């Protein structure tokens, strides 16, 4: 099923998906280790003055976590969509360029040298992500512009090298620090402070909006770089822009919540099945779809073994692999 990506259609699809997202959020708000009746959840949402336990749980714990899931889900999915188009490779995901490994190295390094100041330090992770982004870009440049093959190879090699660095650093960390970082490495939405949402939200929204600017160019780029250049696309600028924005989205998301797997690989595929290949339609669909899926996954992570909690990365990995295999079989057959 594909719709032409007219402005009207884009708004209709985005509107329907947004409604679905709102619905998912409402359902997720009512679920958790503590049973809260619907009326109390609603009261906590609409009367911000109260400080009952229900209000603290809904507004202080569930809502910030859901908002983080929305932001991270959208960021990873849009980054994945952008990178699959940029690299013209359906296996590309936000982690293929080694950015999440770079973020992990940053976070662990901060723990290593800084002790407690750097507990789950998003800033150090982000710095690690940006350094990796620049490094892979320099490696992946070929004759003045990005070559998708060189870029993928540079990313994969960097990622595996950094993974080795991570393992090395982990063996030298104290048990106490390893426990904390293990959750982060698996992808975990439980730890980001509310205050960081105020920085994450505008950063992620701006980067997604920035990528959307390239939507039409990405469509042309799918034909191949040379064809795109013939058709008047400034390929160098588009590739650089998409690379930077997708990497920043990945870096921000990973810094906040660790490497949540499969979402950035899967959602672009699901999106293409739903609305087709036009990025003007695909990008908003991926953003909202990724948000919905991560909110759902995290709801499961919060409730499956309640009162204990799973890291959401475990949920997306367990659910993601079978879905991916299913998609593979379906598209192959």
């Amino acid at each position, binding site marked *: 099923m594909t719709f032409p990506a007219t402005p009207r259609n884009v708004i209709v699809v985005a509107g329907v998906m947004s409604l679905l997202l709102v619905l998912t959020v409402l359902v997720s708000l009512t679920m958790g280790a503590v049973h809260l009746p619907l009326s109390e959840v609603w009261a906590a949402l609409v009367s911000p003055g109260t400080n009952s336990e229900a209000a603290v749980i809904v507004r*202080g714990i*569930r809502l910030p976590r859901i908002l983080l899931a929305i932001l991270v889900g959208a960021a990873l999915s849009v980054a994945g969509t952008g990178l699959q188009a940029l690299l013209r490779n359906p296996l590309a995901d936000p982690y293929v360029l080694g950015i999440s490994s770079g973020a992990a190295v940053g976070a662990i390094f901060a723990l290593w040298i800084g002790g407690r100041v750097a*507990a789950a330090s998003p800033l150090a992770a982000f710095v690690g992500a940006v350094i990796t982004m620049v490094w892979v870009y320099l490696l992946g440049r070929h004759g003045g512009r990005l070559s998708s093959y060189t870029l993928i190879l540079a990313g994969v090699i960097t990622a595996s090298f950094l993974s080795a660095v991570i393992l090395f650093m982990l063996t030298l960390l104290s048990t106490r620090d390893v426990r904390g970082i293990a959750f982060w490495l698996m992808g975990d939405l439980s730890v980001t402070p509310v205050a960081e*949402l105020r920085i994450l939200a505008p950063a992620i929204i701006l980067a997604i909006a920035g990528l959307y600017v390239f939507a039409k160019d990405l469509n042309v780029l799918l034909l191949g770089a040379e064809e795109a250049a013939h058709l008047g696309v400034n390929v160098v600028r588009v590739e650089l822009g998409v690379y930077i924005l997708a990497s920043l989205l990945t870096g921000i998301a990973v810094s906040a919540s660790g490497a949540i797997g499969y979402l950035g690989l899967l959602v672009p595929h699901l999106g293409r099945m739903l609305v087709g290949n036009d990025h003007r339609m695909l990008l908003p669909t991926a953003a909202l779809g990724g948000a919905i899926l991560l909110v759902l996954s995290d709801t499961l992570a919060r409730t499956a073994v309640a009162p204990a909690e*799973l890291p959401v990365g475990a949920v997306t990995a367990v659910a993601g692999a079978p879905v991916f295999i299913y998609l593979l079989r379906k598209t192959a057959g």
Partner: protein
Amino acid sequence: MARFPSKSSGQVPCCPSGVNSPASATVLLCVLAATLSILLPPAVSARTVKDQTGRSVDVPNNLHRLVSLAPNITEIVYALGLGDELVGDTDYCDFPPQAKNKPHVGTMVNPSLERIVALKPDLALGTPEANRRETADQLERLGIPLYGVTASTLAGTLASIEDLGKILGRASEARSLVAEMQARIDRVEKRIEGQPKPRVLFVVWYRPLITVGPSTFIADVIRAAGGTPIGENLKGEWPRLTLEELLPQNPDVILLPKTESFSPSTEEFQSLPGWKDLRAVKERRMFFVSETVMRPGPRLVDALEELAGVLHPTVAFKTGERQ
């Protein structure tokens, strides 16, 4: 708290070339972002103290509802006579048996914050040995004071009991409990005086072999029980020990904690490469000991007496012997 540089949001190339509907999805996301809310911690009459981990904690003056985030703390709370005030503990809190019936908040590493909030605790009690810093940060943000204790020696365990007693308004109970524990420690010390000190390997895990570091309370209990923990030169709390390092240290006694997840047979050990040549294996001095030794709480002296009995059977020290 570390923040993202605000610069990261500014690097958006501004070139809207031929886009039909630039920001329809963005607008919707903006609306969602606008619903961000922040929570203010409620004000209570409290005093600010530094806990054993160095955090400053606002401890309320009236403590009626306590949540424990670690099994050893649950034991201390009960031993101080505050079992009724304990309104929640972890899935692993199994002693005293009543602790199992308390509402649980999840595991030590990943408890449910909303369960903790719903229990309306005046004070939560935790330890960096079992809990994550992130949990402490989150509780602080939610306005739930968390008091942390930590102990890496037998004496430190006694000190943390006394410290909790002071914080929880049970200072005299804590003092007499600690005095009783100290008396039992002294008694063990007297009994084993002049005895040879066997070299002890404490097995935390065996594939790979993980033992206790010299600066853990377990190593300290072994020393107090008249043994010499091997691996005094090892670093960290739970160091790996290779066969190469193990063989020359040749332990006289091997101790294995009895836990649900860890119950290998002694035959299994004898079949490990190199192990059958160890003195402890040849002389069949491998013992399962109660996992109480892994819990720095009131029963740590039980473990001490048990270990002393295992290491020095000739002084006829019966396990769990009381005054």
